[in-house]
């Protein structure tokens, strides 16, 4: 590991939460997080943020759209 370990940990953040790190990178991140409140807090924040983004972004289908889609059943390929 070269440079600032917190910078390195920041680089691993997204892949860590996506679970796409290699075993070696995973150990590297875990090892650093175990002793670094600064990075641990930021990882935790990122995790909450992802959930919050999902919750905020979800909008249910407007009433009436389902009926319109249902009417499309049986559409002919040549139509």
């Amino acid at each position: 590991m070269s440079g600032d370990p917190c910078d390195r940990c920041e680089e691993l953040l997204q892949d860590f939460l996506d679970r796409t790190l290699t075993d070696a990178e995973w150990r590297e991140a875990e090892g650093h997080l175990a002793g670094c409140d600064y990075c641990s807090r930021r990882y935790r924040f990122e995790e909450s943020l992802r959930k919050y983004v999902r919750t905020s972004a979800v909008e249910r289908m407007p009433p009436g759209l389902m009926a319109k889609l249902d009417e499309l059943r049986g559409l002919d390929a040549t139509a």
Partner: protein
Amino acid sequence: MSEPEPDTEARRIATQARDRARFEEEALSLADQVYRVARRLVGSREEAEDLVQETYARAFRSWRSYTPGTNMRAWLLRILTNLNVDRGRKIQRTPQTQPLEESDYYLANKMASAAGEEALETDDVVERLSQDSVVKALSEIPPQFRDVVVLVDIGDFTYADAAQILDVPIGTVMSRLHRGRRALKQHLAEEALT
């Protein structure tokens, strides 16, 4: 069975009708999930409704090109994203790239300066950002990055599914996703904290 055996042609037609009805049922059961993604890919509810209707019209017409047992949600989204590119992107040919210099901790650092370092450990710190600002920030990510963020983080598609839907390599999905998320956080930092 005591009934007479239907002739081959009639049986073929009946099988096809049943397969088709099954396909339509399955596709319609995914409509809410398809809409959810569509809504965040376009600017308004009306556009999302139109896009979903166009998608289903095309899907129902070309139902034979769907391979049973494969991921229908991804198949529908592939139709949808193609239609979306066809219809909208021609108009809004804004620059496809923008400088994304801020790093992954940028928003967290801003929150820490505003609310204190310990606030980052609380579950509700993110609620300092309004849900409207999240929706707005998502809409401001450049389209090619936003598509991936919406598919993966809102639509729960895997990298591989997103790559298939957008017809780009997985590596491209990953780099766009990473950049898109950083852009999202940058917009959130600008909008929610200034």
